[in-house]
């Protein structure tokens, strides 16, 4: 099975027989075992759900623009925010970076030919699609359509309106569609949980067993450490929500009273189990983004990452601490005062590693030679947005303040800054940075920068007003509000369009450049160091034409000999 003969041209571009055009049949795509193709299939499905989720967000913001002449009825608004929450979290951002960039880059970055269990990787993709299908059915709730056609009153059967948290008494007693909607959606979340567990398991074993010879643990790129920490959380946290949602289904079907207070259960117990998973899940979303930013800034500052061990230990530290803080989502739910104090204290243990990471990124840029490539613009915007996200998190971690700020728009703004400002901007930055490696072409930087500024301004104009709404005391998930909240809502809706248009422009720019751009990208367009840049772009099925040279340190910028050595590797 020796190495195929690949026609790698002088700049490291592989025209024929790369992983994209080595076998063009549909069957080879749907049943591929190649981690790179699976990454692209994930990317395609994620973007569909990203735009669907975004669409429901736009409907909500339009409705909130003027509540006197409402666009949606209260029921429809509840369905819209559930749709937005469930789609964006379960179907877009949780698989998000690990499934797309993790799948594509992990084997490349550690010098392996593929992930440890390729068939398991394909199984995770298929389970993800199955979960998405069950989820969409759960949300649209065909029982509702059937009964509506048979001419029954609309209001008794509405699609899922429990919010992405499925809180116990509401989701078990009433629930949408006489329980149909809730059962289907919790089943979908359970199935998607499986896909997440199997991906995490796959990546952890890959990092353990398939590292190139000589690549010790502390020579691994920061992104790989981020993926390792994320996979650990995926494997250890997702089963908990899986069984909790299963208990919800069992409770609705058999009438067992574990969470339902009418039958002797304790709804706060449901919140404990739910948030035991749902706090670590926000770190599943953001840790890979930390990894990506930790890769981009050194490349465009031509300087090694500042304090590599500190960054690595803070990633692992966040993963460990994320399991002991879950109840800071439940301060006002009636927990005992002692546990509130304990969880408030542990929550601050999470703030310190995040701060260390930000300090390290900024110090990496000290005395560097900085180029403003679009990916670098996103990385710098990430630092700014995450400073706001981190500090607003401090507000919510303080026990006294959270009693006021819990379930207000302050929380909405905080988690949009962490998830959208953090994970989504991280994903877009990663897609721009590794675009030449994925597609073998360069994207149009001008349009990319325009899209960046649209996203950056639109995002801030949308969510800074929501911080102010939070301070004013406007509760979240409201379809109607008092007049004093109106100006901020109007400003926020005004910003949503720029945000939405920015994302569409960024994604279209990448898609258009992949299809039509004439500029061929070499193996190493940014003269970066790292194993993935030693493979031709787009890489062949077995990733490397020449066995990767591990001796070149990943962050040894400033040492000219390495760059020259790097160039030889690709061509020989």
């Amino acid at each position: 099975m020796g190495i195929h003969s690949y026609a790698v041209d002088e700049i490291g571009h592989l025209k024929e027989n790369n992983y994209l055009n080595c076998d063009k049949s549909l069957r080879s795509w749907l049943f591929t075992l190649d981690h790179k193709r699976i990454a692209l299939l994930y990317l395609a499905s994620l973007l569909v759900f990203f735009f669907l989720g975004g669409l429901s967000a736009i409907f909500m913001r339009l409705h909130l623009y003027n509540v006197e002449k409402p666009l949606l009825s209260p029921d429809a608004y509840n369905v819209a925010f559930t749709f937005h929450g469930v789609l964006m979290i379960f179907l877009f951002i949780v698989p998000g970076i690990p499934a797309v960039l993790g799948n594509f880059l992990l084997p490349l970055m550690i010098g392996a030919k593929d992930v440890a269990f390729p068939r398991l990787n394909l199984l995770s993709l298929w389970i993800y699609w199955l979960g998405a299908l069950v989820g969409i059915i759960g949300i649209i709730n065909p029982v509702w359509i059937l009964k509506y056609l048979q001419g029954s009153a609309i209001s008794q059967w509405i699609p899922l309106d429990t919010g992405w948290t499925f809180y116990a008494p509401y989701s078990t007693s009433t629930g949408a569609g006489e329980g149909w909607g809730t059962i289907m959606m919790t089943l979908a979340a359970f199935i998607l949980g499986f896909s997440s567990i199997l991906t995490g398991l796959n990546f952890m074993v890959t990092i353990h067993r398939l590292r190139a010879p000589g690549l010790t643990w502390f020579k691994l790129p920061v992104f790989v450490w981020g993926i390792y920490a994320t996979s650990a959380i995926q494997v250890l946290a997702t089963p908990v929500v899986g069984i909790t949602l299963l208990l919800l289904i069992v409770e609705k079907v058999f009438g067992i009273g574990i969470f339902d207070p009418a039958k002797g259960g304790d709804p706060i117990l449901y919140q404990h189990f739910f948030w035991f998973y749902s706090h670590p899940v926000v770190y599943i979303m953001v840790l890979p983004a930390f990894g990506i930013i930790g890769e981009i800034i050194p490349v465009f500052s031509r300087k090694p990452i500042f304090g590599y061990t500190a960054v690595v230990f803070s990633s692992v530290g966040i993963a460990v601490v994320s399991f002991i803080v879950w109840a800071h989502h439940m301060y006002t739910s009636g927990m005992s005062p002692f546990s509130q104090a304990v969880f408030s204290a542990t929550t601050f243990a999470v703030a310190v590693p995040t701060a260390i990471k930000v300090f390290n990124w900024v110090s990496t840029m000290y005395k560097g030679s900085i180029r403003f490539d679009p990916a670098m613009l996103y990385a710098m915007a990430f630092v700014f947005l995450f400073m706001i996200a981190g500090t607003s998190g401090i507000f919510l971690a303080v026990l006294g303040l959270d009693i006021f700020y819990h379930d207000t728009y302050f929380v909405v703004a905080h988690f949009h800054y962490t998830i959208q400002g953090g994970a989504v901007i991280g994903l877009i930055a990663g897609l721009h940075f590794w675009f030449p490696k994925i597609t073998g072409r360069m994207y149009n930087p001008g349009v990319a920068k325009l899209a960046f500024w649209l996203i950056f301004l639109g995002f801030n104009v949308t969510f800074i007003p929501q911080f102010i709404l939070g301070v004013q005391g406007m509760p979240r998930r409201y379809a109607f509000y008092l007049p004093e909240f109106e100006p901020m809502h109007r400003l926020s809706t005004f910003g949503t369009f720029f945000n939405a248009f920015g994302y569409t422009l960024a994604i279209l720019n990448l898609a258009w450049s992949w299809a039509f751009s004439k500029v061929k990208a070499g193996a190493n367009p940014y003269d970066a160091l790292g194993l993935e840049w030693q493979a031709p772009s787009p890489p062949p099925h077995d990733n490397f034409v020449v066995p990767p040279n591990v001796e070149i340190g990943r962050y040894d910028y400033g040492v000219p000999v390495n760059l020259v050595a790097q160039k030889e590797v690709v061509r020989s």
Partner: protein
Amino acid sequence: MAEELGHIIHPRTFLKVLVILLVLTLLTVLLSPRVSGEMVDFGKINIVIALSIAIIKASLVLSYFMHLKFEGLWILVYFITPVILLLIMILGLFIDTPVRIDPIQPPF
């Protein structure tokens, strides 16, 4: 070649472990007040006894039947972590549920 793969344990040791496990099960049953009446009823400590015997049995099954004693460090870590998370979860619940004092029932 075979040695590189996994550690081999002779069925004789498995038989010894099985006997110990059956004896421990018998012990658990005898020590529970439900079975042998008031003689062994020490109140709350019974649960501790039953659980500790179960932990001993589990560690026997783990180390011999599942070869955990002869595995690498990482497999041990992968087994210990969920157990620690179980303890964290129980601790997190127990500082809230039993300690929660609700105000009095209104008069009407």
